[in-house]
C-alpha cells in the first residue's frame, strides 16, 4: 500500500516478524515442555556439581582447621598425639551438635530436610535453611574424623539447589519432585564420579521407575554434573584398581558364597546402626552430649586404629591394592563397624553409603583370603573379592542391585570383574531381602507407602494438585498486537480469553493466526473475540487424572485450562505434568 511510518505500526510489524520466527523455530525444533525440563535438569546438574565441590573444599578446610594437616583423614590422625586423636572427633561432635542446636531456632517449622522424602512423598520442597544447618554440622563431624560419609551431605546440597531452581521457576509439584530427583542424581554423579549410577540410583530407589519421562532428565543432570566435576578437578575414577579378571569359572561358587555372606552381613550392619541410634537416644542425653560421646568413642578407637576415621575411602584403596594383612583387616572391619555405629547412632549428620563400601571391601577381602588359603583355585586373587564384595554389600544394603553393579563399575572402571559382580550383587540382594524387608532407604519409602494409602486424594490424583495457577489471559477485545506480544512473551501455544469476572471464554490459538502473521493490516481489525475458540477443551479442578488425559488425547495441546463449575479460570494443566504424575502413580510403593 504505502510506506508505513506510524511507530506503533512499525512496532507491530516487528513483533509479528518475531512471532513468525518463533513459530518457525517451534515448527523446526518443536521444543516442548520436556525439552525445557531437560535444560533445567542440566542446570540443576551444574549447580549440584558446584555445590558438591564447594562442600568438599569446605570439609577439607574444616579438617585442616581442626587437625592442622592437609592430608587425608586417616593420615593426619596417624600424625597426631593420642590425646588429640581422642579429643578431636569428640570436639567435632560437640561443634556439630551446637550447630544443629542453634540451627533449630533458625529452622523452626521447616519440614523434613530429607531429599528422598521430598521426592517420594513431599511436594519436592527441600527446606534450604535446615539443609544448610545440617550440612554445616556435617562439615564438623566429617572434618573431625567422624566415621561417616561426606557424600550424603553432598547429595543433599545438590538436591537443595535443584529444589531452589524449581521453586524459583514455579514448577508444579511433579516437576519439582523430578527436579529434586535430578539434583540428587547430580549429587551422586559428582560425589562418586558415577553419572550412570547417579541417575539409576534415583530412578531405582527413589522414583521407583525407569520410565523415560523421568530417566531422561536424571541422565542429563547427572552427565552435566560429572562433566563439571571432571572439568574443574582432574578426577577420573574414584578407585584406581589393579586389573582383575575372572580367572576361571571355578571361582564362581566362591563368589556366590560371598553374595550370601554379604546378604547376611548387610542387614546386620543396618540393624546395628539402628540399634546404636536407639541406645544413644536411650541415654536421654541432650543431642550435643550424645554427639560428643559418639565422637569420643570414635576417637578412642582411633588411638589404636586410626583407619576407622573418615568415610573409609583410603582404607578401601589399601585393601584393593592388597596391602593389608588379614588379621589387621579383621581388626579394621570390627573397629570400623563400631565407629560407624557410634557416629551414625549419635546423630552425626552424614551418609553411610561409603562406610558400606568399606564393610563390603573388608568382608570380601577376608572371605577371599580364607578361600584362597584353603583352595587357591577357588579364589585366585582375594583383592577381586574385595571389589565384588563392595558391590554385593551395597546391593544388599540399598536393595538396588542394578545401581550397585553400575556404581561399582563406574567407580573402578574395571569391566573384567562384571560377571562375578553382577551375580554376587543379585545373590546378596535376594539374601538380604529374604532376611530383612527393609533397606537403608526403607524408612522413607515406608512413610511413603503409609502416605499413599492414608491420603486417598493424592493416591487417586486430581487435576487441582497439578494445576499451575495464574495463566496469562487476554480480554475479548484485545487487539492483534497485544495477542502477538503475549504469544512472544509466554511461549504457550494457546492464550486463554476471559471476561471481567475471570470466566473462561475460550482460547486464541497460535496455530490459527500463524498464516496471517505476515499481514499487519489484519492486525487492526482482528481482536481476540474474532478468533477465540469457544469449544476449547477444559478440565475441572476435581477431574481425575485419567479424565484429564482423555481430554488431551482428543486434542493437540501442551496445556489445557482448568475451569471450575462456575466457569472461572483457575489455572492450567500441562500434559507433561500429567504424564509425570501418571508415571508416579503407576509405580507401587516398594515396601508394604
Amino acid at each position, binding site marked *: *500500500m504505502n510506506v508505513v511510518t506510524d511507530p506503533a505500526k512499525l512496532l507491530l510489524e516487528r513483533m509479528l516478524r518475531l512471532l513468525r520466527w518463533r513459530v518457525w523455530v517451534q515448527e523446526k525444533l518443536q521444543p516442548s515442555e520436556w525439552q525445557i525440563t531437560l535444560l533445567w535438569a542440566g542446570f540443576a546438574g551444574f549447580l549440584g556439581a558446584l555445590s558438591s565441590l564447594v562442600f568438599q573444599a569446605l570439609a577439607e578446610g574444616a579438617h585442616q582447621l581442626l587437625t592442622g594437616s592437609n592430608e587425608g583423614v586417616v593420615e593426619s590422625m596417624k600424625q597426631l598425639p593420642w590425646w588429640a586423636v581422642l579429643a578431636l572427633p569428640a570436639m567435632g561432635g560437640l561443634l556439630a551438635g551446637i550447630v544443629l542446636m542453634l540451627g533449630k531456632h533458625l529452622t523452626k517449622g521447616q519440614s523434613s530436610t530429607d531429599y528422598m522424602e521430598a521426592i517420594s512423598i513431599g511436594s519436592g520442597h527441600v527446606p534450604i535453611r535446615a539443609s544448610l544447618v545440617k550440612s554445616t554440622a556435617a562439615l564438623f563431624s566429617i572434618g573431625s574424623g567422624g566415621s561417616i560419609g561426606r557424600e550424603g551431605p553432598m547429595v543433599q546440597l545438590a538436591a537443595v539447589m535443584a529444589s531452589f531452581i524449581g521453586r524459583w521457576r514455579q514448577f508444579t509439584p511433579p516437576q519439582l519432585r523430578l527436579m529434586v530427583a535430578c539434583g540428587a542424581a547430580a549429587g551422586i554423579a559428582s560425589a562418586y564420579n558415577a553419572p550412570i549410577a547417579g541417575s539409576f540410583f534415583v530412578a531405582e530407589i527413589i522414583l521407583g521407575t525407569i520410565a523415560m519421562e523421568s530417566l531422561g532428565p536424571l541422565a542429563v543432570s547427572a552427565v552435566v554434573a560429572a562433566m563439571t566435576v571432571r572439568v574443574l578437578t582432574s578426577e577420573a575414577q574414584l578407585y584406581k584398581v589393579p586389573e582383575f579378571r575372572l580367572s576361571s569359572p571355578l571361582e564362581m561358587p566362591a563368589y556366590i558364597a560371598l553374595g550370601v555372606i554379604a546378604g547376611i552381613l548387610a542387614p546386620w550392619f543396618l540393624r546395628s546402626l539402628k540399634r546404636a541410634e536407639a541406645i544413644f537416644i536411650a541415654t536421654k542425653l541432650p543431642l550435643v552430649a550424645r554427639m560428643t560421646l559418639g565422637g569420643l568413642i570414635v576417637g578412642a578407637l582411633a588411638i589404636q586404629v586410626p583407619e576407622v576415621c573418615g568415610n573409609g575411602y583410603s582404607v578401601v584403596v589399601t585393601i584393593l591394592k592388597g596391602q593389608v594383612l588379614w588379621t589387621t583387616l579383621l581388626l579394621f572391619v570390627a573397629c570400623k563397624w563400631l565407629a560407624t555405629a557410634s557416629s551414625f547412632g549419635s546423630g552425626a549428620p552424614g551418609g553411610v553409603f561409603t562406610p558400606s563400601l568399606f564393610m563390603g571391601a573388608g568382608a570380601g577381602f577376608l572371605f577371599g583370603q580364607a578361600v584362597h588359603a584353603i583352595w587357591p583355585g577357588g579364589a585366585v586373587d582375594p583383592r577381586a573379592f574385595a571389589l565384588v564384595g563392595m558391590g554385593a554389600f551395597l546391593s544388599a544394603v540399598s536393595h538396588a542391585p542394578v545401581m550397585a553393579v553400575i556404581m561399582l563399575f563406574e567407580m573402578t572402571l574395571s569391566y573384567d570383574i562384571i560377571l562375578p559382580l553382577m551375580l554376587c550383587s543379585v545373590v546378596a540382594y535376594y539374601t538380604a531381602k529374604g532376611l530383612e524387608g527393609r533397606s537403608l532407604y526403607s524408612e522413607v519409602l515406608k512413610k511413603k507407602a503409609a502416605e499413599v494409602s492414608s491420603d486417598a486424594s493424592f493416591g487417586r490424583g486430581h487435576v487441582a494438585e497439578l494445576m499451575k495457577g495464574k495463566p496469562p489471559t487476554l480480554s*475479548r*477485545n484485545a*487487539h492483534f498486537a497485544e495477542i502477538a506480544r503475549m504469544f512472544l512473551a509466554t511461549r504457550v501455544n494457546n492464550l486463554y480469553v476471559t471476561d471481567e469476572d475471570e470466566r473462561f471464554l475460550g482460547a486464541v*490459538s497460535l496455530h*490459527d*493466526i500463524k*498464516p*496471517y502473521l505476515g*499481514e499487519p*493490516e*489484519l492486525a*487492526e*481489525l*482482528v*481482536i481476540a*473475540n*474474532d*478468533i*477465540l*475458540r*469457544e*469449544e476449547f477443551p477444559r478440565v475441572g479442578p476435581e477431574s481425575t487424572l485419567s479424565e484429564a488425559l482423555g481430554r488431551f488425547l482428543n486434542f493437540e495441546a501442551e496445556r489445557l485450562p482448568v475451569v471450575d463449575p462456575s466457569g472461572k479460570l483457575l489455572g492450567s494443566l500441562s500434559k507433561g505434568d500429567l504424564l509425570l504424575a501418571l508415571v508416579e502413580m503407576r509405580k507401587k510403593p516398594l515396601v508394604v
Partner: protein
Amino acid sequence: MNSPIELIASPDAVVTDLRVNSGEEAIRALHQRLRAATPEVRDADQFMHDLLERAALSSVCIADDVALPHARTTAVGRIVLAVARTATPVLFDAEHPRVRLVFLIGTPKAAVSEYLQTVAALSRMLKNATTRAALLGAPTEAEFRAVLSRAQLR
C-alpha cells in the same frame, strides 16, 4: 461450503449505491439483504445482535474508507458475505468518518480459520489501489461483481 476466495468472487449480496447515513444503518441494510439472499442466515435477530455487539467492542474498519463489520455467530450455517458501496461517505466511527466500501461477514462459530482467510483475502484485495479504484468506479452492479471476481481469480 464455498471457499473464502469463491465467496468474495461471488458474494451472497451486492449493493452498489447503498444510501445510508451511519455505520449502523449500513449494517442493518446489508443484514437485510443477506437475509433475503440466503437461507443460511438462520436466526436473523441473533445475527444482527452479534454484528452490533462486535461493532461496539472494537472498530471494524481496516482502512479510511473500508469497513468489515463481522460476527462469529451461531446464527449462520456457513460463511456469508454481503458487499456494499455507499452512495456517499458514511461515518462508521470517529476515526473512520468516510467509509465507502462495506463488507459484511457472518461466520459460524467454529470457522475461525475460514474467517481469518476471508478477512485476509479481503484486506489483500483492498491493498491493491487499482482494484479499489475499480470497485469505487464500477458503473453497474454487474461490473462491480466482475471486479470482485477478477480480483480473486487473478
